[in-house]
């Protein structure tokens, strides 16, 4: 059994129990042990980096230190957490001067960043530790009639120089993993463009307009649902449709699922156990297409 320190972040426990439930159930079923470490904090995502980049890097490094102490690699569910931690990990490993500065800061909290651990997104765990073959073997439901509009979120792919997750212009890992489950991943216009999630709270109008484009484009392309990896994208697109209704008087009803949910469903986990009631846009139409 492969073990990882689970970096849960804030948004998932705060808002999206269905993501956590499905991810824990599915990964455990596939033989991945998730260890919850004490004293982890916010990952220091872009809002924190915007306030002070150095503080942001130090917070990320602090969390990596906890994993280093536990001798575990980190796995994240949230794409945002993945970016903050993986970016900090890469930057500090590459840049000795920066590492020295951050360690000077961390020393006050009794920590020292070594750079001995990896930060992975759970897709990488599925791809490398479980592997497409074993994943396929474990799929017990038929998803073949499901047309999925995948949306990985920006921070799984970019900045690619530091994250090194996938080709930033022609990504395929996520779509391959969707197809591994048996569903069809479709192309839609501006697929790789941002959902605007990070502008929520500062410029809600802009954020919503960006989310709307995404919903419009996926609907146009005939998707049955959008599948995401990031709780922020999820929020923007799922809750966003409710806001679109009130703001633009447009009704879309495009179900938005976390990939972990699709995975749990494909693995045959009972939908009633997945807390799907927390979705704003109901997902019955998707459940109906899963045989």
């Amino acid at each position, binding site marked *: 059994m492969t073990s990882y320190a689970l970096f849960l972040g804030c948004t998932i426990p705060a808002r999206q129990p269905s993501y956590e*439930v499905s991810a824990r159930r599915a990964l455990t079923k596939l033989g991945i042990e998730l260890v919850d470490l004490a004293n982890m904090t916010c990952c220091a995502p872009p809002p924190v980096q915007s*306030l*002070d*980049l150095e503080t942001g890097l130090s917070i990320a490094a*602090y969390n990596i230190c906890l994993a280093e102490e536990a001798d575990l690699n980190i796995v994240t569910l949230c794409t945002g957490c993945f970016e903050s931690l993986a970016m900090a990990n890469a930057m500090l490993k590459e840049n000795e001067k920066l590492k020295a500065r951050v360690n000077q800061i961390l020393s006050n909290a009794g*920590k020292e960043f070594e750079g001995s651990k990896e930060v992975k997104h759970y897709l990488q765990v599925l791809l490398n530790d479980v592997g497409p073959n074993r994943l396929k073997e474990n799929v017990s439901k038929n998803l073949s009639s499901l047309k999925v509009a995948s949306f990985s979120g*920006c*921070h799984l792919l970019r900045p690619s120089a530091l994250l090194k997750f996938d080709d930033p212009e022609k990504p395929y890992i996520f779509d391959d993993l969707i197809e591994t489950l048996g569903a069809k991943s479709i192309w839609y216009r501006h697929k790789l463009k*941002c959902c605007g999630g990070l502008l929520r709270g500062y410029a809600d109008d802009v954020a919503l307009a960006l989310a709307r484009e995404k919903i419009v484009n996926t609907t146009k392309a005939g998707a049955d649902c959008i599948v995401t990896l990031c709780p922020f994208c999820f929020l923007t697109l799922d809750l966003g449709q409710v806001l679109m209704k009130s703001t633009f008087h447009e009704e879309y009803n495009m179900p938005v699922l976390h990939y972990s949910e699709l995975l749990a469903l494909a693995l045959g986990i009972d939908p009633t156990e997945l807390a799907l009631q927390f979705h704003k846009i109901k997902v019955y139409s998707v459940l109906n297409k899963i045989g």
Partner: protein
Amino acid sequence: MKQGKEEKTTNQAFSDVITSRLGGETITLCYQCGTCASSCPVARITPRFNPREVIKLSLLGEKDEVLSGDAIWLCCSCYNCQERCPQKVEIADVIYALRNIAVKEGNIPNIYSEFAAELINEGRIVPISKFLEKKRPDLGLPSLKPVGVDALRKIFSITGFDKIKQEKAEAS
């Protein structure tokens, strides 16, 4: 305005301030090809933000316009521009640097001071709802581990992050 120690108003001075900050190092490489703007999902929706213009204004030394305006806060940090920039300008990071400078000067949007407050108080920027925390056992989820907020405060005391809120209070 804060009373800056280095109140240089020349063009050179502002780009120097930016290039000497973490994230801002590459701004001077820009040759205004517009790839960033064209890549930017926000710029296509609102004229309030255009990364190419933010860089041009910064390089021309229009410090006040850049730092006190709302453009720099409209970047959605998607890094599309940074990936495609043919001059390897780290545009998204430059925007972070500009935001950091703005924060230092006391120009903080409300939502960001809320983020800062949450982080300092709770160690998280999104507060956990008591309702969901109670519900966790029913959903088959383990209880949440404690948050290392004390450690964060020690970090903040060095980076000066804990002062951000006060500066905002002074400014307002």
